[in-house]
C-alpha cells in the first residue's frame, strides 16, 4: 500500500498498525500520531506507551507494526474502543480502516485524518487545524469543546459523509464543519464563530446560545428556536466559494442547491445575536 505525499507525486511507504486482538477494554492510543513516529525506528515506535484500560503497555504489545519511517500512518482492525488516535497531531496523514473510538483527532493542529468507517463521540474536539474526513457517521460532540471549556474548535476542517450526533460544533471559535447527512440536536450550540454546513436534516435547537457564526441548512430543518428572527431571503456569495472548494476536494455536493436563495435567521437573541442560520429556500 502506498499513499500519495502531500507535496506531489512522491510516494512514501506508510507505517501500518494492526490491532492484535479485538477487545472492549478501552485503549488510549494518543501516541498513534505521525508526530510521535517521525524520527523513530520501528523498534522505538513499538516501545511507545499506550494505555490498555489502566495498564501501561507498549504500542508493540497492542498493535502489529510494519513499514518504514514515514509521516503516513494506516491503522487497521476493530478500533471501536481505541481512543485518541491522532491526538494533537500537527503533520502527516492517518488513515483509519474501520470504525474508531472516542477523541479521534482531538486537539489536532495539522495534517489529515481519514476515517473509512464510523467514529464515536468527540471526534475533532478542540481542533486547531488540519483536516478530519469521516466517511461514515460521527457520534456526539463532533468538533465541540471539552466540558467547562469556553472555546472549542479553532480552525481546521471536519467533513462527515454520514450522520452526526448531538452538539456538533458546540462552542466553536473558528473553522468549518461539513455534514453530508443528518444531525442531532444543538448543532453549533453556544458557537462563538465559524461555519457548519448541513446537507441532510438539521436537528432541533440549532444555534442555541450562538454568538456569531453561520449554520447553513441545505436540506430540511426542524423549526428554529423562538430566539431566532427571520431577516431576509438572499443569495449568499460565500456559500459558492465554500462549495467550490468542497467540490475540488471531491465531495459530491449538489451545485443547484448551493446557488439558490436562502432564508436568513439571526440569533441567538439571548446571546450576542450576531449568528445566522441560513436555510435553503428555492432555486429562483
Amino acid at each position: 500500500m502506498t499513499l500519495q505525499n502531500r507535496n506531489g507525486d512522491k510516494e512514501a511507504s506508510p507505517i501500518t498498525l494492526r490491532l492484535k486482538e479485538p477487545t472492549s477494554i478501552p485503549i488510549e492510543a494518543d501516541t498513534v500520531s505521525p508526530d510521535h513516529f517521525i524520527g523513530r525506528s520501528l523498534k522505538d515506535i513499538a516501545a511507545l506507551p499506550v494505555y490498555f484500560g489502566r495498564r501501561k503497555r507498549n504500542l508493540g504489545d497492542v498493535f502489529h507494526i510494519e513499514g518504514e519511517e514515514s509521516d503516513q500512518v494506516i491503522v487497521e482492525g476493530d478500533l471501536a474502543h481505541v481512543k485518541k488516535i491522532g491526538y494533537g497531531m500537527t503533520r502527516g496523514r492517518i488513515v483509519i480502516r474501520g470504525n474508531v473510538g472516542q477523541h479521534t483527532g482531538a486537539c489536532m493542529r495539522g495534517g489529515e485524518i481519514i476515517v473509512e468507517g464510523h467514529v464515536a463521540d468527540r471526534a475533532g474536539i478542540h481542533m486547531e487545524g488540519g483536516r478530519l474526513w469521516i466517511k461514515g457517521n460521527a457520534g456526539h460532540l463532533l468538533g465541540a469543546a471539552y466540558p467547562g471549556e469556553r472555546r472549542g474548535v479553532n480552525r481546521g476542517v471536519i467533513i462527515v459523509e454520514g450522520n452526526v450526533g448531538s452538539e456538533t460544533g458546540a462552542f466553536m471559535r473558528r473553522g468549518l464543519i461539513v455534514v453530508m447527512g443528518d444531525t442531532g440536536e444543538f448543532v453549533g450550540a453556544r458557537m462563538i464563530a465559524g461555519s457548519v454546513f448541513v446537507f441532510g436534516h438539521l436537528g432541533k435547537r440549532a444555534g442555541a446560545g450562538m454568538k456569531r457564526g453561520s449554520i447553513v441548512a441545505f436540506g430540511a430543518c426542524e423549526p428554529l428556536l423562538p430566539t431566532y428572527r427571520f431577516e431576509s431571503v438572499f443569495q449568499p456569495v460565500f456559500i459558492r466559494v465554500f462549495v467550490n472548494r468542497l467540490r475540488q476536494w471531491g465531495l459530491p455536493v449538489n451545485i443547484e442547491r448551493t446557488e439558490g436563495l436562502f432564508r436568513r435567521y439571526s440569533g441567538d437573541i439571548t446571546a450576542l445575536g450576531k449568528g445566522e442560520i441560513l436555510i435553503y429556500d428555492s432555486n429562483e
Partner: protein
Amino acid sequence: MSAVFENVTCKFCGCLCDDIAVEVEDRRILKAKRACPNGLGMFLNYDPTLQSPLVEGKEVEWDEAVSAAADILSRADSPLIYGLSSTSSEAQRKAVELADRLGAIIDSTSSVCHFPTTLGFQMVGGAACTLGEVKARADLLIFWGCNPMEAHMRHFTRYSANAKGFLTPNGRRDRTVVVVDVRPTKTAKTADRFLQIEPGTDYEVLTSLRALIKGKDINEPVGGLPSEQIKELVQMMKTCRYGVAFFGMGLTMTAGRGYNVAEIFALGAELNQYTRFFAMPMRGHGNVAGADQVITWLSGYPAAVSFARGYPQFGPGEFTSVDVLARRETDAALIIASDPMAHFPRKAAEHLERIPAILMAPVTNCSSQVANVILPTACYGIDAPGTAYRMDNVPIRLRSVMQKVRPTDEEMLMRIMEAVKQ
C-alpha cells in the same frame, strides 16, 4: 426498654430532615416520628443484625470476602466503582482513594440523575443559596420538572412552600408557588399557578424566559404556552422579593439536558439584576450531593472520573457508568450503596451481569442477584455515624441510634485497599 433519640437525620432523600425522633428497642426501630413514608420505610425495614458476607452465594468469613473482592479488582484491566449516593462522605473519600490506587473509573448515581446539572453549571456557573434562606426569605417558588409532594415529601413543610420563616411568618400565604411540568402532578395541584408545557420543550420555554428578561420580545406561543402566560411569569420573577427555581429530572433527563440546566442557572443569575433569584437542583438520594462534593475536592471533577492514566480524566458520556457498561469497557465493578441492576438500561445491566461484581450495601437489592461478592455493611444514619450533604450542599451529621455490629463502608473500603496493596 425503649430509648428515644431526638433530632436524628434521615438520609433517604436530599432533604436530609434532621428532626426525626427515633424510638429504638432491642436493636430494632419501633417508631420514627415526623419521618415521611419514604424515610419511615428506611428506618423500619433495616435489619441491623450481623450478616455474613457472601462469595459466589456461599457464606464466608470477612477476611475471605475482602480478599475475594481485592482479587477481582486487582485482576481487572478497567475496574468501575459506582454508587456512593447513600453512603457517608467519609466512605466516599475512601472510594476515591481506592479508585486512585487502582486506576479505576469512579462514578456516582449522579450520572443517571443530576449529572447534566453539573454540565450546565460548568457551562454558565450559577448563583446558589441554602434551604435556610429559602425558608426565611423566598416569596416566589418555581418547581420545574420535579414533584416534591411525592419525591421530597417534607420539602414543602420544612424548607419551601409551607415553611414559616423570618420574613415569611404566614408560611404558605406569604409565598407564590409556580409549577412547570409536562403533566399535572400532586405538586401541581397545590400550586398557585401551573404551567403545563409540551414534553421536550423545556429548553424553548427557558430560553424564551431569558430573552424576555433581557428585554427582547417573544410574541409566538412557546412549548404550548401562550406568550402572555410566559410574560406573566417573567413579570412575577422580576418583581418578587426573593425567588428560587427548584428543578428536577424533568429538566436533566429530557431532551436538552445540560443545556436546559445551563438556561435555568443563567436565568437565575440574570434575574439578580432585578431581585434576588436562585436555581437549585432537587437532589435525589441522601448523600448524592456529597458524592459530587467529595469526588470534586479530591479529583477536580464531580463524577465520571477515570484514574486509568494515573491522573483524573473527566468524561461525561465516556466514563459515566451506563456508557462504560453499555460499551463493555469495564471488566469488574464495585457497587457501593446503590442498585444499578434496578435502574440501568438493559444493555448496561446485561454487561454488569457478565462481569464480576462486588456489592457493598446495607440491604439486599436487585444488584445482590448478580454480585459475586456481597458485603453487608452498616447503614449510615442508623447504626453508623457519618456526614452527608443536603441538596443545597450543606453538610449535615448523620447520627447513629444504636451500637453497630456490622462493618461500615469506610472500614470495608480501607480493608479492600490494604488487600489490594498486597
